[in-house]
């Protein structure tokens, strides 16, 4: 069979035009995030991406997951190339997330906040971090986590503790009762430096109050000159020496959790994500939760954000995806997959599970937040903060000298 030459030419031209048009329409956005903590989060994310792609023909969302350190390293490498992500995960606040914003790697998103009315969509406590940076609004809230004290109800009962501590003194009294009953009050994992740090952060808020605590964490006040800072290290030492399950420096937080599950200690200072882990262990009924009694009006917690890269070639599509991810129907459908509460304030909660109800009460009971030390300090100061906390915890440094030691490092690093 002979095909006329002009038909072949026409077909070739048509294929070229069609191919070009398809290439122009096909848009890929790369999203770099952390490894998901559990399979349900992974499945939820895959399902959300599929639905978004179905609703946006020609758009592909490619997710790359990494461990925390690998993710940070990958972002640094990407900073020097054009092959980086369109959207990247990072923590909110001036510490870890702020580093990328400060370096110009995140795109100001004021335009998208106005277009998608995000200011009206998110919980104020989660949203506030986007406004901390000079030069605009950066990042979109992804999750918001609070941290509080989980306790083993049976061990509290055994020690004769009849109600949840409402003040710091009551918490110490509870720890003393537990110690008398031969039960270590807390379990912590010391190999991951940030675990014991949580207790120090809470004690610092308790001893110094919100204003001084913030001044210390932003390094505007001198640690050496604030007696409350020294008192906080002293208190930390009291807890680590008298009320911790020992040994704790040679185990990590997951081993610590297993010991908590096994009833080896009465309390654990953990985030709302622990509810999922307790659910997985089928032990929800054995534990309850109460906020660390700092005496203040701020909840200990942190937000995680997704930022659009300043190098993204498709920032509009990236913003459209983030809008979809944080939309009310999507957040409602995947409630609990990424955290106990959603950052979307229009989501409705129906669970009657006591721990989830307790967490909702905790989230609703505070005016503001204070973040973990490793998200407030620059990275080098965080590393020194951990070293000093661990030295105090292992009796290698006099607690009274600890605040001065930290201040010396801060002064040198400025």
């Amino acid at each position, binding site marked *: 069979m002979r095909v006329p030459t002009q038909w072949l030419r026409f077909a070739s031209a048509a294929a070229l035009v069609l191919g070009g048009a398809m290439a122009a329409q096909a848009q890929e956005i790369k999203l770099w995030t952390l490894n998901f903590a559990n399979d349900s989060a992974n499945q939820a994310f895959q399902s959300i991406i599929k639905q978004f792609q179905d609703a946006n023909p020609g758009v592909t969302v490619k997710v790359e997951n990494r461990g925390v350190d690998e993710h940070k390293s990958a972002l640094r490498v990407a900073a020097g190339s054009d092959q980086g992500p369109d959207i990247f995960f990072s923590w909110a606040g001036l510490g870890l997330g702020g580093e990328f914003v400060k370096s110009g*790697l995140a795109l100001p998103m004021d335009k998208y906040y106005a277009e998608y009315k995000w200011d009206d969509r998110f919980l104020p406590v989660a949203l506030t971090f986007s406004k901390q940076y000079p030069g605009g609004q950066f990042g979109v809230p992804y999750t918001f986590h609070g941290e509080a004290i989980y306790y083993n109800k049976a061990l509290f009962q055994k020690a004769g503790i009849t109600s949840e501590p409402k003040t710091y003194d009551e918490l110490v009294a509870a720890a003393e009762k537990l110690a008398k009953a031969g039960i270590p009050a807390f379990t912590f994992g010391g190999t991951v430096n940030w675990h014991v740090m949580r207790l120090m952060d809470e004690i610092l808020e308790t001893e110094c109050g919100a204003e001084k605590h913030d001044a210390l964490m932003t390094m505007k006040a001198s640690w050496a000159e604030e007696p409350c800072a020294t008192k906080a290290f002293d208190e930390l030492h009291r807890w680590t020496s008298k009320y911790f399950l020992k040994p704790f420096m040679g185990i990590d937080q997951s081993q610590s959790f297993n010991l908590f599950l096994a009833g080896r200690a009465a309390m654990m200072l953990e985030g709302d994500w622990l509810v999922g882990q307790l659910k997985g262990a089928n032990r929800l009924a054995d534990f309850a939760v109460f906020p660390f009694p700092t005496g203040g009006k701020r909840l200990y917690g942190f937000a995680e954000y997704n930022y659009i890269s300043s190098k993204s070639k498709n920032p509009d599509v990236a913003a459209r995806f983030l809008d979809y991810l944080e939309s009310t129907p999507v957040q409602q459908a995947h409630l609990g997959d990424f955290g106990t509460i959603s950052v979307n304030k229009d989501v409705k909660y129906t669970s009657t599970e006591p721990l989830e109800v307790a967490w909702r009460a905790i989230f609703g009971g505070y005016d503001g937040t204070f973040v973990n030390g490793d998200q407030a300090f620059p990275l080098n100061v965080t590393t020194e903060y951990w*070293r000093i906390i661990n030295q105090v915890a292992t009796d*290698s440094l006099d607690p009274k000298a600890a605040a001065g030691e930290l201040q010396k490092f801060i002064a040198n690093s400025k």
Partner: protein
Amino acid sequence: MSIRISAPTQGLVLLAPALLVYCVFAVYPMLDVAALSFMKWNGLSPNAQFVGLANYVQVFTQDPVFWQAVRNTVLWTVMSVIFPPAIGFALALALNQNIPGRSPLRALFYLPVIIAPIAVATIWRWMYDPFFGLFNATLTALGLQGLIKDWLGDRNVALYAMFIASVWQTVGFSLVLFLAGLQNVSQTLIEASRIDGAGRFEVFRYVTLPALRPSITIVLILSIINSLKAFDIVYGMTGGGPAQSTQMLALWAFTQAMQLGDFGHGAAISVVLLLITISIVIPYLRWSRTHRETNP
């Protein structure tokens, strides 16, 4: 038509690809790190800022962990030069005898060498677990609870606990090199010395040991180099903790650059480590060569 190439040219041609790769992946990064040690750069901004010797001043006078890392690295190196080679040497002497099961035993002792250090770290971390680990469980079973330790969490014990894991892994390396050396010792010389009335100790002292000098040099040099750059096992077992008490120079350089984003500080530590390595290895190599020439 045939092209005649002189032997030196042929050598250079054959060497060129490897030399190119070496220059690109070893020499250039080394020079770049040296240059970076005079810069301030966070790995994110497009430009690095020249700061002269500021990074070195910071490392030597303001870094609270640097001197701890130096002490640990020196101690680790001294222990690495003594224990694994000594144990490897003793094992090599034993396995050089005609004993039953010699070949499987050689393989058994060499096996840990082929395991990735990070896997070794994981295995030993499990064994050192203070609550469920092999060592504390065994001590408990034997009624020796008083000896139980937080092996990797006690700053007075952690470095030595890690070192035992390192010995377990590296002793096979020394063993193989010493075995190869022992098999090259001339049997004629040994027999001649015995005919001359030498006992076992004299044979060992005056025949075997001198013949093993090249093996001993190689083992010691490689032990020094490997111990100075100790990284994986520390990273995997303690991450430098508790409270940076097991920190090493190589890991601290990595931490500063790749985790804290202070590339200038990390590069300065790397340069210090390089200088320490060079200052130990080059004099030893020169001494060894001179000694060999004067006592062939």
